[in-house]
């Protein structure tokens, strides 16, 4: 088809015309091959300017437009809209940036600037000649969300999305929901009892008609793309027929195997067949296959023999279900750094981590709310908190701050002081970071009203001395060394990525940082998005956070999902890669360089196949294709070469 290109040169008042001789630009391109119209106007983006473009497209029957004005970042969308209104495909419009790239940075070089402007306009004309008509792709949208992780962030996400009227699937790895938050004794700075916060949330989620919760389940495989993720969810067997089990608990009495309880952080024991903790609002019996004798080859069938309803089923198999979802929220939470990583602090039953102390403080914990130490059940009269165990400590652990420890130490110290009359809590700290609403005041009250003794310094050694644990530390404010004979020591260990987070990130095609936290698409502007469109982050899977920050980040992720779900369908930029099947040899290099897994090799045709909805248009495959089979719509190699020809000819 005959090319009929129009060139519109904007003065931008004097912004362009003050430096670039716009008349000369028009003159230089008006007889350029395929150009049928060249004109200039004082403000192309103004209403009369847009009208000029619109009428000229119609009158001159243009099938290509070059707008010579400001940066495409500024007005490309504006002029593409103008083109569409005039009946021209918006992808047949190119911007020649002669303001940011020419008139502004070359204010004192009028002649050279004009020359540069002319070649930039000519480059745009050359690119335009090989542009093709494109339409944004319409991608179907499944308005159902997957939430991975059933902690406080995951539960919040599920409830918010479901209350907006969309279906939600929650996948939780453990046999019960609630996450770390359900294990806590109280919250700072308000000292709310956690069951009072969590129980209604969990109950609401479990009974919500729009929410389906899979516990004891994992995301096995994820394929597809935004609006159309296909997720395989693998549920592990509980070995209990839930329809028959009446939670009588006889099996628990009969089971000969005891093992440490995960929910009580090893401070209490459970049987190999056990009931999920009451804090998680789900009283379900299940068998732990790692510890059950029968499932490990032994003949024991104690639970099966005693069960009055014949609910035990050792042959039960896990099930895998496949679901299609439009968006995914990852809320798998955090892990705790192992306190054994600091060799100077002797391993001892009375040296525990912060989460273990939460259980001791918890009214429903292993000690029933009495504060007793693990070794002999005595009430500890002197307790020592050590902050920054592994956090801000590159020698043993990590450089980052775990952000919650200063505050939970203050909370635990206050709960302890109020429960144990005459008890003394000491806190060794580096700095106190109490930078949120009411936090500073809370720490102050712990120091002043609750008699918690804060010592600014590190602990160099911990060791057992008879009934006590000796704590050798320093107080850098008085410049003296300190020795405390403690009954109980609590190490505030670092929050780390959860075990398995990297494997999950790989399945989701989401990036992780050097430590293993999942990374956001942009640290400032896209803090809850990931680089895979349609997958969002909530809570501590991304970075250490306290409960309000986790809930806030969850709110951000939820709003992204809801704004996507409020659309009828999704549109995707059409300037993407496509393989020339006649040339492609199916070598697969393109698939290996694609960050988005958008390319696969068709096993029958033996050629590359681009998933158009997933392609993000980066062009890595095109530059890597050894045979030149991979092409880029409206960014093809010939267009670059033609532009380079103009560029290199500039001074010939």
């Amino acid at each position, binding site marked *: 088809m005959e090319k009929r290109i129009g060139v519109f040169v904007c003065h931008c008042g004097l912004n362009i015309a003050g430096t670039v001789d716009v008349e000369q630009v028009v003159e230089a391109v008006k007889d350029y091959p395929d150009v049928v119209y060249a004109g200039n106007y004082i403000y192309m983006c103004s209403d009369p300017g847009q009208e000029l473009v619109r009428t000229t497209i119609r009158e001159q029957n243009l099938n290509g437009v070059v707008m010579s004005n400001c*940066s*495409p*970042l500024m007005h490309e969308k504006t002029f593409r809209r103008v083109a569409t209104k005039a009946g021209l495909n918006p992808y047949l419009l190119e911007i020649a*940036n002669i*303001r*940011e*790239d*020419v*008139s*502004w*940075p*070359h*204010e*004192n*070089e009028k002649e*050279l*600037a004009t*020359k*540069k402007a002319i*070649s*930039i306009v000519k*480059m745009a004309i050359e690119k335009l000649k090989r542009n093709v008509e494109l339409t944004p792709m319409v991608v179907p949208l499944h308005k159902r969300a997957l939430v991975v992780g059933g902690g406080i962030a995951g539960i919040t996400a599920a409830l918010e999305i479901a209350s907006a009227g969309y279906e939600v699937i929650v996948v939780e790895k453990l046999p019960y929901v609630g996450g770390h938050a359900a294990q806590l004794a109280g919250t700072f700075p308000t000292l709310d009892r956690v069951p009072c916060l969590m129980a209604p949330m969990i109950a609401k989620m479990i009974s919500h008609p729009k929410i389906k919760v899979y516990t004891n389940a994992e995301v096995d495989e994820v394929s597809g793309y935004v609006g159309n993720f296909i997720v395989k969810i693998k549920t592990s067997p509980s070995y209990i027929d839930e329809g028959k089990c009446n939670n009588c608990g006889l099996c628990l009495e009969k089971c000969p195997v005891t093992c440490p309880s995960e929910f009580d952080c090893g401070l209490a024991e459970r049987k190999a067949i056990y009931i999920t903790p009451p804090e998680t609002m789900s009283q379900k019996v299940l068998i732990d296959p790692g510890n059950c004798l029968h499932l490990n080859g032994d003949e024991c069938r104690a639970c099966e023999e005693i069960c009055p309803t014949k609910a035990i089923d050792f042959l039960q198999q896990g099930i895998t279900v496949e679901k299609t979802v439009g968006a995914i929220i990852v809320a798998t939470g955090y892990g705790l750094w192992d306190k054994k990583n600091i060799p100077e602090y002797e391993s001892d039953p009375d040296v525990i981590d912060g989460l273990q102390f939460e259980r001791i403080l918890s009214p429903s914990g292993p000690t029933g709310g009495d504060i007793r130490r693990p070794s002999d059940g005595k009430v500890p009269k002197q307790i020592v908190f050590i902050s920054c165990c592994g956090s801000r400590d590159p020698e043993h652990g990590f450089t980052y701050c775990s952000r919650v420890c200063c505050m939970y130490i203050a909370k635990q110290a206050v709960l302890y002081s109020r429960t144990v009359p005459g008890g003394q809590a000491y806190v060794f700290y580096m700095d106190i970071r109490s930078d949120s609403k009411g936090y500073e005041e809370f720490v102050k009250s712990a120091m002043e009203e609750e008699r918690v003794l804060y010592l600014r310094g590190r602990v160099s050694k911990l060791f057992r001395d008879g009934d006590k644990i000796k704590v050798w530390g320093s107080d850098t404010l008085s410049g003296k060394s300190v020795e405390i004979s403690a009954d109980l020591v609590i190490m505030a260990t670092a929050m780390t990525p959860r075990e398995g987070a990297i494997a999950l990130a790989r399945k989701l095609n989401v*990036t992780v940082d050097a430590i293993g936290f999942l990374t956001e698409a942009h640290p400032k502007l896209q803090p809850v998005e990931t*680089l895979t469109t349609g997958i969002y982050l909530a809570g501590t899977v991304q970075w250490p956070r306290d409960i309000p920050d986790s809930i806030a980040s969850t709110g951000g992720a939820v709003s992204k999902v809801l704004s996507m779900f409020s659309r009828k369908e999704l549109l995707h930029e059409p*300037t993407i890669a496509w393989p020339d099947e006649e040339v492609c040899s199916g070598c697969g290099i393109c698939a290996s*360089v694609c*960050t988005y897994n958008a390319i696969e090799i068709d096993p029958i045709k033996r050629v590359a196949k681009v998933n158009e909805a997933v392609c*993000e*248009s*980066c*062009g*890595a495959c*095109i*530059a*890597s294709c050894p045979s030149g089979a991979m092409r*880029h719509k409206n*960014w093809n*190699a010939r267009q*670059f*070469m033609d*532009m*380079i*020809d*103009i*560029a*290199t*000819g*500039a*001074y*010939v």
Partner: protein
Amino acid sequence: MQEDEFEPNIVGLLCHWCTYTAADLAGTTRTQYPTNIRPIQTMCSGMVDPVYVLWALLGGADGVMIGACHPADCHYVSGNYKCRRKTAVLKSILNTLGLEDDRVWLCWISAAEGQKFANTVAKMVDELKKKGPNPINAYWST
């Protein structure tokens, strides 16, 4: 031709997400730099086919600037690393072909570094002036 009359011409292959936007910023802040560069927008430095660089050099460009996001900052996760390797491989053969590898500059310039973009263009022009014209021009004209 006198040395001070030589004005190198530079083809800029600039990533849309970083260096192209940095060039915009240089403009917006009225940071002045030499006019010798011809900017061409790319979606990512990872889409810069080494052929484009060769094409520019064979076409007589005195310099080619590839503007890429800083390591770890690529909008497409790893396009800049791909570009870095391609450029390294290309440079390893350029001299054998009679082209000069120091005419090809791979620069990490983020969208916030308008000043760095301007400085880099100025520095490149200086260096290329010292180097003189791309010898391929003399080759083609004989």
